[in-house]
């Protein structure tokens, strides 16, 4: 890994720079620390910072950009006319990259000499076998076009690596020399270092923004790509979901939205009453020891990973429901996975979510409200129902909306518990599927990202993102307004 070594070298330079810088500063003050503007370590840090940071940034950017550039360059060299009918340039390029990687690995492991790798005669050597022996498996034999391109790819990559090494080291050494020349007792080293640290802090805060931008870009670009291949109205208003990778898929989102909504409704029907009553009891009735015991117990439910709930739905709740409502019992249920299975389990998962949010909300209703009501001779339940809950209503609505957004975005429980069939039905004991479950099923496996069947997952993700984001923003707004009211 030359990039890794390069990074190590840069860091070593920075370490050396630290000590030289510190020594230079001390020397300029004749060893008297009091004459320095900043503490000696700041002079060292200043040199180290300017040596390492810009050089490492160049290194990172280069490492990310170079493959893209090389890829584009090599793709441009492949004669499109020589490709077989229906073969995608992207697929060819991924073969090219694999061959190039394989050759690199073969040289590194000694299976091929550098000379041999550079001059491969496809007629004489079974390249596929050689690459297989070094751990790079190819789907088909290597064609001449691919090999040529791969050699180009290797060549361009090697040139790029050398250029990168030179540039990075020049940046590091240049800035190190410049900073050292500036280092003397007058230099405001601490201020420079602190400015650097502040920039680092700001960049860390920017990662949150970058993440959002990343999410939006990755969804938007692929969604646009999808709608180029598939009609907008068929997606949003289509009532059939029947993807087939052979083509001719029906990709209507309505059955998925319906499944999502139905399961979420059942989940909320379970979680909201239980969670709300639990919160009311914990905040208004429970003695301190009961609260200290019951609250953490309920919150354990929130700490259990969703995969556990998924398994619980698939292997415990589903079969249990089937015994009651299935063929042996009421006969409403065909299989263990159903809307009811997923909804119930998701409801259990959301109980602590609803209860701890509502608990907070109820606790922020001022005590004077309770006093006023008790002072009039109201019982606790009258006070709760007629004063506290109405006062807390906006906050509780916010909490329920947040829980709804959780339910809509939940994946593992529905993947394992709800089934795979997309249908528009009212029977809660039938298997249905959701937006999240279909994102998983369309994107797992080795699908290429060029077909509408895979790309549809991104527009599903977009739909999901927009719905949950809307709910969240609205809910957070309500809760914030509510809190301001009582502050």
């Amino acid at each position, binding site marked *: 890994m030359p990039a890794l070594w390069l990074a190590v070298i840069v860091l070593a330079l920075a370490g050396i720079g630290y000590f030289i810088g510190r020594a230079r500063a001390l020397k300029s003050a004749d060893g008297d620390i009091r004459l320095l503007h900043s503490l000696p370590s700041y002079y060292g840090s200043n040199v180290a910072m300017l040596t390492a940071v810009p050089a490492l940034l160049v290194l990172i950017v280069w490492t990310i950009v170079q493959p893209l550039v090389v890829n584009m360059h090599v793709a441009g060299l492949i004669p499109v006319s020589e490709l077989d009918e229906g073969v995608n340039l992207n697929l060819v390029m991924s073969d090219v990259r694999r061959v190039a990687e394989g050759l690199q690995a073969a040289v590194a492991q000694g299976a091929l000499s550098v000379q041999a790798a550079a001059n491969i005669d496809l007629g004489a050597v079974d390249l596929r076998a050689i690459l297989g022996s070094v751990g790079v498996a190819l789907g088909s034999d290597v064609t001449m076009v691919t090999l040529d391109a791969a050699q180009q790819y290797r060549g361009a990559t090697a040139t790029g690596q050398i250029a990168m090494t030179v540039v990075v080291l020049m940046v590091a050494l240049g800035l190190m020399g410049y900073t050292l020349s500036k280092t003397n007792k007058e230099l405001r080293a601490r201020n420079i270092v602190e400015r650097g640290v502040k920039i680092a802090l700001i960049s860390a805060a920017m990662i949150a923004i970058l993440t959002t931008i990343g999410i939006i870009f*990755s969804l938007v670009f692929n969604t646009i790509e999808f709608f180029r291949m598939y009609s907008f109205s068929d997606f949003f208003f289509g009532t059939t979901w029947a993807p087939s990778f052979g083509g001719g898929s029906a990709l209507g989102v309505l059955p998925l939205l319906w499944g999502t909504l139905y399961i979420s409704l059942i989940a909320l029907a379970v979680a909201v009453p239980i969670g709300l009553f639990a919160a009311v009891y914990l905040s208004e009735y429970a003695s301190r020891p009961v609260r200290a015991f019951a609250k953490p117990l309920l919150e354990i439910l929130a700490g259990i990973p969703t995969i556990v709930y998924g398994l619980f739905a698939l292997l415990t709740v589903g079969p249990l429901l089937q015994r009651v409502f299935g063929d042996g019992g009421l006969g409403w249920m065909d299989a263990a996975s159903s809307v009811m299975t997923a909804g119930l389990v998701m409801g259990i998962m959301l109980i602590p979510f609803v209860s701890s949010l509502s608990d907070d909300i109820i606790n922020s209703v001022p005590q004077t409200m309770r006093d006023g009501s008790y002072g009039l001779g109201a019982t606790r339940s009258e006070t709760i129902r007629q004063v506290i809950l109405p006062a807390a209503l906006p906050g509780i609505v916010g909490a329920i909306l947040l829980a709804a957004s959780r339910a809509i975005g939940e994946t593992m429980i529905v993947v394992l518990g709800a089934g795979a069939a997309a249908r528009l039905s009212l029977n809660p004991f039938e298997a249905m599927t959701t937006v999240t479950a279909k994102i998983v099923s369309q994107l797992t496996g080795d699908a290429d990202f060029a077909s509408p069947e895979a790309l549809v997952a991104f527009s599903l*993700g977009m739909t999901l993102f927009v719905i*949950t984001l809307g709910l969240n923003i609205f809910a957070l707004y309500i809760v914030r307004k509510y809190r301001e009211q009582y502050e």
Partner: protein
Amino acid sequence: MTDATVSPEKTPKRSSLHTASDRTKKRNASETRFKAMGIGAIALGIFFLIVLLVSIISNGIGAYQQTYLQVPVYLDPAKLDKNGNRDPADIAKVSTFGYTPLIQAGLLSAVQDANIDTPLQTARDMKNLISASAANVVRQDVVSDPNLIGQTVTFKLLASSRVDGYLKGRVTREGVAEDKNINVDQLDLTDKLVDAGIAAKGFNWAFITGSDASESRAEQAGIGTSMLGSLFMMLVVLGLSLPIGVAASIYLEEFAPQNRWTDIIEVNISNLAAVPSIVFGILGLSVFIQFMHLPQSAPLVGGLVLTLMTLPTIIISTRASLKAVPPSIRDAALGIGASKMQSVFHHVLPLAMPGILTGTIIGLAQALGETAPLLLIGMIGYIATNPPGNLIDGFMAPNSAMPAQIYEWAKRADPAYYERAWGGIIILLLFLLSMNIIAIILRRKFERRW
């Protein structure tokens, strides 16, 4: 104030406080009902928790026991070393197919030696009792020590998952009629082998340390390798999200001016915390794999995705701990001439550290149990049969992760894998439990009230 009149005739007739009126009784009854519903809700919640835990433990505990067979195998030189020169290269050429008949013969002879009466008379009749992995175990021993050839060595070999399931009660006599992997005679034999001490259950270390196995070898599958995958992912998450999260929080809490820009970052963070995890999976897939060409299924990519997912949690809890440090501390430092940066890094940050670590551990625990985004970046469907060889492979080579492995097992057709899935959950939950306990201890021990 002429309107201040309360008509005296409306004052209710004087009633004794010592007798409850009918209305009060009714109101108190409804009070009791309401309270009972509250208790009921909590009881129901705790009941669900208990059902969940009981179902995890009762289903998963079986994975920690595995049936082994003590089989004396005659390592026939005629089969294993045809040249008779004990040349390791030649011996290595004998594939597992060469060993399978020897093991089956060994079991047959063990059955005969123990005078067990069974309608099964040939070695092939018994092949369903032994795990398909057995031949590989014997072969590896022989390859590493060719001198064993010619001797009769007793190996402790895995029984097949059907036999194991039968002894654990998962496979029943009624259920095997359609099963081509086992028959009733073989189950009878199993019972007798147990009586004779040839088959016995033992603690299943291989489950904790081992790797995943192919669909047909449930008895061999273990969670160890995916545990390593999770470990490497958590290293990435810890190494990135702690410094970035702390840096971002310090900026927002201590340095950021109160303006629109800061507002946007804050709203953005609280919304990111509520974005469904699967969306982070899509982000990882298109940015890290599609765009940056990082390897699929690599713990590094998983770690990056989980980092982005955990960051908001860590930022929110870190900011809360920074906020809890009283301003007087900052003023004191600034008052003696420290720069703002020094006051934060020398005084505020160390005081907030316990809170930050607690938040980080809880964030890590969340990340450890997260599954959905891992599905999209290819950490399932991959059978992690070998643990990573070195540190770089640990980050870059394809692997699975605990929750993804559990999901993978849950999707497989053989019910023997369900037991493994539940067993994996026990380990996962133990990890989460200990992380939370550490967080609680940290909080108890270092919590400071101002």
